[in-house]
């Protein structure tokens, strides 16, 4: 899908009007292993580009989730809080993390497209 963007912190982002849906990439879930816990940003809170926006924990370790753009949290996905295993099963569709109403679309410009991200993930190896 051409409208999906990716960050160097292994988040994906999909725009619909001024709403961005954000999750973590399949590559990220493969690095993390089985996810057993997720913490999402509070509804109505404002998150800042590259800032902390939640946590995922696998059986092995905890990792911060960052947001690739700034915005107000308008929705968060309780289904993955209740069943974190969904993140491993379908990270780039059903198991989205949160939705943001964004103000500054120029922030999207620094993000990668699918091809660039795949190359980045392969080369960085992390």
């Amino acid at each position, binding site marked *: 899908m051409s409208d999906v963007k990716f960050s160097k912190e292994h988040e994906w982002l999909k725009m619909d009007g001024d709403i961005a849906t954000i999750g973590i990439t399949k590559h990220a879930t493969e690095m993390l*292993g*089985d996810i*057993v*816990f997720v913490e999402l940003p509070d509804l109505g809170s404002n998150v800042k580009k590259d800032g902390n926006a939640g*946590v995922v*924990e*696998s*059986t*092995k*370790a*905890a990792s911060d989730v960052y947001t690739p753009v700034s915005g107000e949290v308008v929705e968060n996905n309780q289904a993955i809080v209740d069943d974190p*295993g969904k993140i*491993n099963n379908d990270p780039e569709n059903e198991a989205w993390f949160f939705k943001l109403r964004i103000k500054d679309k120029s922030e999207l410009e620094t993000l990668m497209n699918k091809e660039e991200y795949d190359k980045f993930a392969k080369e960085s190896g992390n």
Partner: protein
Amino acid sequence: MEIIKTKLYNLHQKHGAKFVPFAGYQMPIQYSEGIIVEHKYTRSNAGLFDVSHMGQLFIKGDNELTNDLEKIFPLDLKNISLNQSKYSFLMNEEAYIHDDLIITKVKDGYNIILNAACKTQDYKIIKQLLNDKYEMILNSDLSLIAIQGPKAVNILEEIIKGPEKLNFMNGDWFKYLDEKIYITRSGYTGEDGFEISINNDNVEELAENLISKGVKLIGLGARDTLRLEAGLCLYGHDIDLETTPIEANLKWAISKKRLENGGFIGFDKIDSQIKSGTKRLRVGIAPEDRIIAREKTKIYNNDNEIIGEITSGTFGPSIQKPITLGYVQSKYSALDTKVLLEVRSKKYPAKVCKLPFYKKSYVKGAN
């Protein structure tokens, strides 16, 4: 230092292992299906663990050796039967723990299974304590595998006749491919199972054979979640050279007779800790929320004072809850005591709970 590969390295690789360096060895942390599947498979079926990195120490000797080992280990070795195993620890004079181990009385001496990271040091310490009087072999010609889970007994019996008759924490010699191999009914997962000591040349054959009967390879990741659900200590985390067996709540592993009479290294400290108590104790702690408190997480009381630290913490795939072990000041060690765990700068409610988190299904004969 070059990293060591066990004889099952190629087999691990074939099954999609992700490797991590562990105590100088390249060990599989998980295979392609992941830690949760591996964990649950061990609880419901049977898992195969490569524990060849652990030390297999044989000390040759008779009654004199038994006497000398009783000066080192707090066990009633004179009264354990042939082929019986005991969990114990190697301590210093201050009763701090060099290592925890399983010792088995065999026909012409004792077998001791040691942690990989400690085995070389343990060997030196024990050799010195025994004044170099006995033949000691830290055997590198032997591999060690564990098969654990409710179906372990039936599957193993399909391949090797006899181990089903073993009581828990007992071993014996069996035959496989013309080789005499030593099998004990033991393990560290909270499940029934066996540990098999077998020649390096035959281990891959046996492992493949077990896999063909339905056993799955299990990595260090699930080994950790399994042992933690079973409430068992991991050396270097829950016990180390700054903890004593009494602080670690391992008094059960010290023979009653030896507690009365002493005569082993560390006895004075242990005796005084039993009589006057310890400042801190190892406990199980259950967070109320689905929050995972990892090693080094600070434990607080309701007055915001630090009262201890977590030493192991993960999510228990079978009990579907986070689980932790840690040390708290002794006055906070009673069951159901409310504490707070600081995770990512926020404090979460938790309480001291019973161990194990997961109920064991060992066969009879355990003691």
